[in-house]
């Protein structure tokens, strides 16, 4: 049985990663650097991301059956592959921590006067642990199921304030200089790089000929909505955007329509909660999968427990609050490191692909020796396999008892 995700599910997971972190605290962080030109900074960041998405789709097309770990291992060795995966793990882990802090902020400011910290954290940890035990296919299906609601919530969040916004507030463009716009992109680079999820999904996608098209369609639509959100944010709040650290809720407060459509506003809030929970689950699931691949854990509970402990230490013990987390993330050295990492990974993937061109076909030995993940079994056909066995070896294989792999293939 295959557990691959479809092209559209891959696109939707990429959309979910794109939405995360961009709608709550970071609009005000952007405004702190770029002022009214926040939308321009986001446009530049997303354009760069889009180019890397194209690169990644080419890499995926060339290596439909290889995971990122396998690709890098073959090209550069196991150590490099493990190090890169650990870096990916740290990236997604820290991203997940930021999303958890944003959720706490959202609960504290939108839903509750003051929510008890333990009452919030314990159920959330349980939910995160549960989500980490699932796989990307479950996530893909869930996101696919909720996508119409998510799309409606996004449109509602953007169009309702837009109806009363004064779009001339974004003029004049670059009033405080172009330098500030690029500075904003540099300092907020952590919220870009959403395509890095594709590294985790490598080898787990049913890469049909129209899969890239579906992924690109999802990406273009999501990027457009994000840019529109920032344009509306700048139009509504202008220079005072730095004060609105909960952009999503504050934008909806601005319009008078909300007072007359109270129920719809609450439905919107509930849908945003679903989006936030899915985001946090996806981040930690990605972290868990990268950790599993890096250290080759056989038991999926081990990375789950490890991540929960790390999460406990960073959020509960160290009491890493949102402001402190944002300060770390927007510091110059951290931003430069993140950009270097975001650029390096696709480039390494391209180099690895070019290096292995013609050499990356899967061998039957690798299939039977389980050195290739079992997700790929159904796509192995004789034509895309190299024959490396001699007749003697085949006879030996025939005389052996059926292995576990064969049993699973038969059962499938």
């Amino acid at each position, binding site marked *: 049985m295959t557990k691959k995700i479809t092209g559209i599910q891959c696109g939707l997971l990429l959309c979910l990663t794109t939405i995360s972190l961009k709608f709550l605290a970071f609009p005000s962080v952007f405004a702190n650097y770029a002022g009214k030109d926040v939308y321009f900074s986001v446009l530049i960041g997303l354009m760069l991301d889009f180019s890397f998405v194209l690169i990644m789709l080419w890499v995926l097309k060339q290596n439909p059956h290889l995971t990122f770990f396998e690709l890098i291992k073959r090209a550069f060795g196991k150590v490099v592959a493990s190090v890169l995966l650990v870096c990916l793990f740290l990236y997604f882990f820290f991203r997940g921590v930021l999303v958890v802090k944003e959720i706490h902020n959202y609960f504290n*400011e939108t839903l509750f*006067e003051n929510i008890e910290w333990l*009452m919030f954290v*314990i159920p959330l940890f349980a939910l995160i642990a549960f989500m980490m035990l699932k796989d990307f296919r479950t996530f893909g299906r869930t996101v696919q199921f909720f996508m119409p609601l998510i799309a409606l919530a996004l449109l509602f969040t953007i169009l309702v304030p837009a109806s009363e916004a004064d779009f001339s*507030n974004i*003029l004049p463009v670059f009033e405080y200089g172009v330098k500030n716009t690029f500075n904003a992109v540099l300092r907020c680079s952590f919220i870009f790089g959403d395509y890095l999820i594709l590294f985790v999904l490598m080898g787990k996608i049913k890469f049909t000929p129209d899969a890239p098209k579906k992924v690109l369609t999802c990406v273009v639509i999501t990027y457009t909505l994000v840019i529109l959100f920032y344009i509306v944010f700048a139009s509504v709040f202008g220079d005072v955007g730095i*004060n609105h650290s909960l952009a999503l809720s504050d934008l909806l*407060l601005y319009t008078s329509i909300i007072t007359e459509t109270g129920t719809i506003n609450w439905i919107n809030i509930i849908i945003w909660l679903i989006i936030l929970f899915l985001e946090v689950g996806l981040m930690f699931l990605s972290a868990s999968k990268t950790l599993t691949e890096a250290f080759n854990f056989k038991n999926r509970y081990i990375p789950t427990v490890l991540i929960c402990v790390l999460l406990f230490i960073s959020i509960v013990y160290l009491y890493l609050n949102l402001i402190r987390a944002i300060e770390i993330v927007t510091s110059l050295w951290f931003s430069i490191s993140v950009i270097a990492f975001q650029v390096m990974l696709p480039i390494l993937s391209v180099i690895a692909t070019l290096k292995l061109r013609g050499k990356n076909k899967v061998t039957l030995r690798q299939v039977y020796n389980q050195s290739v993940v079992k997700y790929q079994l159904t796509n192995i056909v004789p034509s895309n396999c190299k024959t490396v066995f001699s007749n003697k070896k085949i006879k030996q294989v025939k005389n052996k008892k059926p292995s576990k792999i064969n049993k699973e293939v038969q059962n499938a």
Partner: protein
Amino acid sequence: MLKFIKRHRLVVTFLCVAILLTPFSISKPAESDRMAVVTSVGIDKTEQGIEVSVNTIVPNSGQAGGGGGTDGTVKTVSATGTNVSTAFANITLVLGKFPGLAHCDSIILNKNLFEENVLEYLDFFIRTNNLTSNAAIMVAQNTAKEVVETAASQKGLRAVSVSEILLLNTEYALSKASNIDEFYLNTFSPSKTSMLPLITVGDSGKSNPDVDGGVAQTALNTNADKSVQSDSGSSQSSGSSKSLKSGANNSAKNNSTSTPQKAEESGSGNGSPEKIIKNEGKGVIVKNGKIVATIIGDEMNGLNLLSLDTKRGHIQIKNVNTPEFSNANLTFEIFNKKTSYSGKFVNGKPVFDFDIDLVLKLEEATQKTSNIKALTTTKNYVEGVVKTKLYQTAENSISKLINTAKANNADVFEIYDYFNKFHNSEWKQFLNTLENKDDYLNYVTFTLSLKLQGKI
């Protein structure tokens, strides 16, 4: 055991979470015992410091059907502190509950807070996570406490939502939202100018024998009322708690608000006069956090004509002599209004043009002699002498407003914003030619294209 847990993971997890959290939640008091729902806040500056008055809803368990703010369940509480934060802390002690601002829909400011910089008194509200609504800001003619206490004594929704009084402001007066976000946006804009509504407290003309504990018995400041004529009971709405009639034309009418009372039979002079909150369509211009001018009467009419959003209004002309009217005062209703503006530079100087199209309908004609021809409804009265007088009246009110704005350097038209956005380089060049860049308004030429038509 492990197998059981593995098979029923979800149920076990749910039970664990429930068992773990139940002791925490079961002993907690209800939120309504800890938090007070604050519906409006008033800020005054006294000798002791900053006095904050809040209206809180006191749930009445004897009433079925709930609904806050009905039948005297709104209570006013005041406390003084060195600043707004400490005043709120003292209110916590007085109330015995934390004041929750999530449902606060209005912030009423005393006029004397604008003597220095009103932003220092609003800073608390812009920073607190507590205030999740976009509260409306109003300026009290007298004291904010009086307004808040009067609101508490109102029946129906008006006690809870004081900002209801501004419901039609965007159509009749000021034409700008006066909530806290908008105020900050305008204050930090290049023009640094914003406008806020001015509200007063006055007598409704009826006495109320059953006065609630929260009603202020302070002496009414009669200066506010002397400037307008009292027109008690002029705007009763039938069975609705939203009765508001605010008009831009303040020279003749008093825009009084009144809420319907269950006990309509006011006691025959036994009780004290009932106080009501009045929105007389007045506004104040605030620049850099200080009030620079008050807009009333003709200036407010001019502002209505120039604003893009107002759709209603009246123009009154006097001493009209035509075949139909003899020495008559005619009041025209603005049936339809379309305003646009544009700016350009002519010889390096900014020129701002207003283009106003008005469709007017004769609403009332008062004259001492009666003429049956004046009753014709199929005649277009906007012609000849009437049209000339209408032009003059409209131009006068607009000129008055422009002169007031120029005298106080108050850019109520957002000239700076407009030229900065759409003619940025020319505007910057123009500003560089000025000795005092803040004085730009005096160098702007205003032109007006006014078209009047009558509606039959």
